[in-house]
């Protein structure tokens, strides 16, 4: 059977193919990256203006909020780079493309992920990293290899959290098509509410966005840890610290859910 090395090599080959496909349309790719970046940055500029004018929001300074925003954006960029095709799950199943995935000796979910590479993600990534870069200068953090390592873990964990949520929602497609708008809405909730310190939310909303939709784990929790702002947490500090682990855990659960739900696949007649 296939070794791990073989599997990784196959994965890279598929991802490479998608990349090459995307760059067939070179002009489009470049403008997609740029517009993606501008889109996110305008959102940030709005926040920046507000905070600059009001000095602080929810007890967090401009630099701290920039840091939080940057973390989430980078996380989202990674999520989008790896899992964006989950939003195409509906279409893939309706057109019969998913059938082909099942005919190949490779997990269909992986084939879905490597199907296309939406270069917009690079815009998010670049934007997010830029913000992180700027913010790191302004925040009061003792930077050490451990902190940086934790940051990397946190950002990856955040991507896994978003990925997990979208995989679970995507598995609904096996039984009900037309769930796209639900997934887009959830994605927007992450995009909107994930950028701000939870201190500006009422308590009920804080819990909702932690235990119903794990938005807190994407950026707010790890950012609080790095910036040593445990004062703003509505949960015990240890829960915030293990955010990356929660990401991994949720992701594994999501994979299980996907596999279970795929028994319901009906494969419409193409």
């Amino acid at each position, binding site marked *: 059977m296939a070794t791990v090395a073989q599997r990784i090599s196959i994965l890279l*080959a598929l991802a490479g193919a998608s990349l*090459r*496909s995307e760059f*067939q349309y070179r002009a489009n790719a470049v403008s997609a990256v740029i517009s993606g970046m501008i889109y996110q940055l305008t959102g940030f500029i709005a926040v920046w203006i507000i905070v600059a004018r009001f000095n602080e929001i929810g007890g967090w300074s401009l630099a701290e909020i920039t840091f939080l925003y940057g973390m989430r954006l980078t996380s989202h960029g990674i999520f989008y780079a790896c899992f964006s095709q989950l939003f195409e799950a509906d279409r893939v199943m309706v057109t*019969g493309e998913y059938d082909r995935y*099942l*005919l190949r000796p490779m997990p269909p979910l992986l084939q879905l992920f490597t199907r296309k590479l939406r270069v917009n993600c690079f815009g998010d990534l670049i934007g997010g990293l830029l913000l992180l870069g700027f913010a790191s200068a302004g925040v009061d953090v003792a930077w050490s290899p451990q902190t940086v390592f934790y940051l990397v873990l946190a950002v990856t964990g955040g991507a896994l959290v978003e990925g997990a949520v979208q995989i679970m929602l995507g598995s609904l497609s096996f039984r009900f098509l037309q769930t796209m708008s639900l997934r887009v809405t959830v994605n927007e909730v992450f995009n909107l509410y994930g950028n701000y310190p939870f201190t500006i939310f009422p308590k009920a909303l804080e819990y909702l966005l932690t235990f119903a939709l794990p938005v807190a784990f994407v950026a707010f929790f790890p950012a609080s840890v790095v910036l040593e702002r445990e004062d703003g947490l509505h949960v015990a500090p240890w829960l915030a610290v293990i955010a990356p682990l929660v990401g991994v855990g949720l992701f594994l659960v999501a994979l299980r859910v996907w596999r279970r739900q795929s*028994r319901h*696949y*009906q494969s419409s007649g193409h």
Partner: protein
Amino acid sequence: MCAGMHVRRRGPGTCPDHVSSLPRETPVPIIEVDQLVKDFQRPKRFDGPLGGLRTLFTHQYETTRAVDGVSFTIEEGELIGYLGSNGAGKSTTIKMLSGILVPSGGTVRVAGLVPWEDREKNALQIGVVFGQRTQLWWDLPLSDSLRLIGKLYRLDDARYRRNRDRLVELLGLQSFLETPVRQLSLGQRMRGDLAAAMLYEPRILYLDEPTVGLDVVAKERTRQFVEEINRETGTTIMLTTHDLADVERLCKRIIFIDKGTVLYDGPVEELKRRYAPYRMLDITLAPDGETPAPAWLGIDGAEVVEEGDARLLVRFDPARVAVTELIPAIMARHPVTDIAIVEPDLEGVVREIVEAGEVRR
């Protein structure tokens, strides 16, 4: 393809020496299907203002039974035609055989595996070509697709190159190997798909409407390839098709499915014999303003089955009346400008079967 328990009929040059010295075992059917059932459940749709949400959270379902107790076995190396009208359950059966769908009942074994349980292992031993949907990468050259498939199916370099070169030659892909798939014609794409499916030497090939939309030359070419593959490598082939010319040309055995059940499973010739022990005369009458009454023929063993403007189709039983008697008899009753003898064809048989919903004994 040489590894594995069952030694297939094979052509020269593809087998390492040590395998051909193994004793032949009695072949077990490579595909065994027993009482296969598939129900489709669609959530009951609700109307009204919140209908969409209710549909999403409902637990009520409507059930349709697409496959209702299908059973058959296929020996290794056979070339089977799988026939039936749209919605008869053909595609559903194939999807269960290939591991795409999980059956609601019954059992399937393909080369000793249960397809949906050992999906990945099963995938390595089957090739599937859909006539209407390509598996090739749309924006990349055909050669890229083949290379990717080689990687996906874990072919080592030597084997990949050998198989690819053979298929390129067999299917004539050289001239468009570097063309992006989206720029290929339907015929070229089909050849590419066939190459992709055979690249890793699968034991079983499922072809779903492979000649649909192709021109006459391309169709013939495809049929030639299919026949050659089956003959030379002993690949078991299951051909789903509407094109009865495919069946006539390639299949000795057909399985006819309608409304989810197997109506017929056996040699093509037998089916034709049951439905067409008769032969037909296609007669063009000389125009004289009269259309003869159906019973005017009055010959034992012959009857008029179809009438048109100055045209008659007469069916006769060669056991009871010889052509040499019939033709002069007809000409005596009515002036005739043309007579043709029509061989029995499968299309009419199929039409009759579908209309009747069952097969004559």
